């Protein structure tokens, strides 16, 4: 009953006052100077990794408060060809709606078959570092603070594992103030062990992962001296049957300790509950997130967690294969999750699409987390055997109506945005400091897209956290914003979505309210900072135990129409 009352209150405050707005996501990729095309290496062999990537991320690598862009890239399987010599791209935000390719200058033009990316300041030097997952050797790039990065994989003790790594997330699982790293791994695959599969009996297609052995996720524990140790076994995370594609960090049971959620493909999803002693216990099965209603494993891809209904608890979204709905697992607060996909309105629309990247984000700043799902099938031949399933598919955006209900609004967000794509990675950030969240999408074997959020009139407040005793990024900290009688909260988190990471700055939609009455930050260290009367229309930087140390008012949109 309490939850229903809260929801009703929220509806009165935001749902009615702000209403649906005429928001458009305008494609600004070309005018922004982003000319990235993903090289998946496909040359007819249909090797499994070809259909998986790529990921993307927002990182403010030069601390100028303007989010820059990382686009991960694959490469050809024959490495002696110039056309195959592609690398990831780092695009610097020029503060005027354009970006510049600074990959070479930044020292990031390192050959690899890259897939995913995680952003975090692992050495607490004030500059966010990059972890790139790959088929083969993953890479840790240390941000030198001068616009360049150094590949420190070997020095950090991470050299060696030759795996099919996918998503990754930084997390301070032992709350020692140092960011640790969870790396999801998919299957044991090699070119030599590639299997023949076909959808239509004629053409080779990409095999589903049942054909290959799984591969455990890996937990790298930060030793604090620039080095990491493999803590997977000790932390009881080792599970060689896992075939993980997505990783999300959430505090599932509200005990203040980060838990780990792995979205697995044809294996049960795993929810590792933090035991507060450096170990985890897997609770996904009894929580009801491991399997479909029939008790079978689904094809989990991307994942995210947020409190979408003001229950006070993080609920979960997991993208699945075509003919499987998006999972919207509502956190009941007793260790159980109940799938609300059908009743909420997100189920039917996602039934025939194959989702990868996904996240909760408040695109219209009405205070209610909406949902984005990036779609795209894995095989061009699918249309030969299924009438309604297509290779390129439109993304989904579901507007949160409050009361646990969503409405699909994709078609209203602009023809470029709503057009079919073979999307994979997805991330959000406010690229031009106008207070609204923009979207970055990657496509398999195709271009990346940057969509600018235009037309909204609701207010927002953006919060950047700087830890001192806690990790510098404030990852794991929870910010609660009170506006009138409404309370919303978000946790700073790395990972989520699929192979991707959104910005670490939190954006709180305030509807028509011009200020947040209170902002409370609970840091991983246990420190609680409380602020009162924080105006909307700005990004505030809150330093642990010190309060607001910087204010940056929103500017007029830098992106020219």
């Amino acid at each position: 009953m309490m939850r229903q009352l809260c929801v009703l209150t929220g509806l009165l405050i935001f749902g009615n006052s702000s209403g649906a707005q005429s928001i458009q996501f305008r494609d600004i990729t070309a005018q922004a100077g982003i000319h990235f095309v993903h090289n998946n290496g496909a040359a007819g062999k249909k090797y499994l990794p070809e259909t998986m990537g790529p990921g993307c991320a927002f990182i403010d690598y030069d601390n100028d408060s303007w989010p820059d862009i990382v686009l991960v890239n694959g490469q050809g399987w024959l490495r002696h060809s110039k056309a195959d010599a592609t690398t990831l791209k780092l695009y610097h935000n020029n503060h005027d709606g354009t970006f510049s390719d600074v990959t070479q200058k930044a020292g990031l033009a390192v050959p690899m078959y890259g897939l995913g990316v995680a952003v975090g300041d692992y050495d607490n030097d004030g500059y966010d570092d990059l972890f790139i997952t790959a088929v083969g050797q993953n890479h840790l790039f240390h941000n030198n603070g001068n616009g360049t990065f150094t590949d420190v994989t070997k020095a950090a003790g991470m050299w060696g594992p030759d795996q099919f790594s996918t998503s990754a997330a930084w997390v301070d699982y032992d709350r020692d103030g140092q960011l640790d790293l969870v790396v999801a791994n998919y299957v044991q695959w090699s070119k030599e062990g590639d299997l023949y599969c076909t959808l239509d009996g004629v053409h080779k297609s990409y095999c589903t992962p049942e054909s290959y052995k799984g591969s455990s996720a890996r937990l790298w524990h930060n030793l604090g001296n620039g080095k990491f140790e493999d803590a997977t076994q000790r932390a009881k995370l080792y599970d060689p049957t896992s075939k993980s594609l997505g990783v999300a960090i959430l505090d599932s049971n509200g005990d203040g300790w980060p838990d780990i959620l792995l979205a697995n493909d044809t294996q049960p999803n795993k929810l590792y509950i933090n035991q507060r002693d450096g170990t985890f216990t897997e609770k996904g099965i009894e929580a009801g997130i491991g399997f479909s209603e029939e008790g079978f494993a689904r094809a989990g891809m991307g994942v995210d967690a947020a409190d979408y209904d003001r229950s006070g608890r993080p609920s979960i979204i997991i993208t699945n294969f075509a003919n499987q709905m998006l999972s919207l697992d509502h956190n009941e607060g007793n260790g159980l999750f109940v799938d609300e996909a059908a009743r909420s309105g997100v189920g039917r629309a996602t039934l025939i699409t194959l989702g990868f990247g996904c996240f909760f984000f408040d695109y219209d700043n009405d205070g209610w987390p909406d949902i984005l799902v990036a779609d795209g099938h894995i095989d061009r031949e699918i249309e030969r055997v299924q009438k309604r399933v297509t290779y390129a598919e439109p993304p989904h955006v579901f507007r949160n109506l409050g009361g646990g209900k969503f409405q699909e609004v994709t078609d209203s967000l602009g023809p470029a945005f709503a057009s079919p794509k073979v999307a994979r990675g997805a991330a959000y950030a406010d690229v031009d400091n106008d207070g609204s969240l923009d979207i970055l999408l990657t496509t398999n074997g195709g271009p990346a897209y940057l969509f600018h959020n235009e037309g909204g009139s609701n207010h927002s407040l953006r919060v950047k956290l700087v830890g001192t005793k806690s990790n510098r990024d404030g990852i794991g900290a929870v910010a609660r914003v009170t506006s009138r009688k409404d309370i919303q909260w978000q946790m700073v988190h790395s990972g989520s979505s699929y192979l991707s990471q959104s910005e670490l700055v939190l954006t709180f939609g305030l509807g028509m309210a011009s200020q947040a009455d209170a902002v409370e930050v609970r840091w991983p260290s246990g420190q609680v900072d409380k602020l009162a009367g924080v105006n909307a229309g700005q990004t505030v930087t809150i330093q642990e135990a010190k309060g607001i140390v910087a204010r940056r008012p929103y500017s007029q949109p830098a992106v020219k129409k």
Partner: protein
Amino acid sequence: MQIPRYSGDKITLRARLCYRKFSWWNTQFSFAGVPEAGGDVTADYDDRNFAFTGSLRGVSAKEEKIPDLPIVVIAEDEAVLSILPQGSDPPQPKIVTQSADWQRWNDYGIGLFLQGDLKSATAAFEKATEADSENPDGWVNLGRVAVQEGDMDRARTVLENALRLSPMLARAHFFYAKVLRSDGRYDEAAKHLRQVLAQYPRDRVALNDLGRILFLQRKYADAVKVLQGVLAIDPEDLQAHYNLMLCYNGLGDEVHTREHQIRYLRFKADESAQAVTGPYRQLNPEDNNERQAIHEHVSVPLSVPGMGCVGTADAGCPNERSSVPVRRGGSR
């Protein structure tokens, strides 16, 4: 098809599907196989030749002579084709669907559906409904494919057709409940499932679906009753144990949660088991081909380029096996 020059104005095609339980060679070998001299025998293979001259004494079947297993004709049919003079215009194809064709199209559709070829299954079931639009089963099967494809609007339409023709048809109610459930219309879905259960109270599938709906509505105690009904029919029902585990978790009953979790995990298939077949499938492309839901059988001499490519992705193999030539006598 190549038509012989002097074949007259008609050709009669006859087809028979014959069956013998065991191959002749295997039967001879089993009863009287005797190895000849020479040939290697290792733990991995037996390369000897066999003669079928052994004594039948000691053969467990206790037959005096090697049985001559009969070849049984399972099905046969014939069709008469008209032959036109060379160079004449071929007549426009005209498919006349008659009510007598309903069974054939419906069975064909079921086969395609089970094979996973939903697009072709839809076409076949459409033919069935064309042959006899008053037969509700054709509409139900169209609905079933639409549900599988996630085309719930289409499923709703065709299933409503079926229910109009046969308001008590349990299969139509069952699939219609699935459509309603995908919309989150749980009460209505439960109502249709209860119509099924009124006719078939021991239908585990319908009981499981009803139990799941009650769980989604947080009616945990009611769901437990329904799902226990499933276990009264089949104590090893995987889905019932899974959802009972969740229901008891919702009720805060840790003992029963644990109990059903253990049983669920006991009866659940090992998802990782299929990976064991990977190396074998790579080494045995013919068997790998059989594993594909939709696959072709190509019978050609081994000397034909690309023959070894069936079911494999080896270097030098064409990506489109349809380009592999099929000689006379071959079949696809």
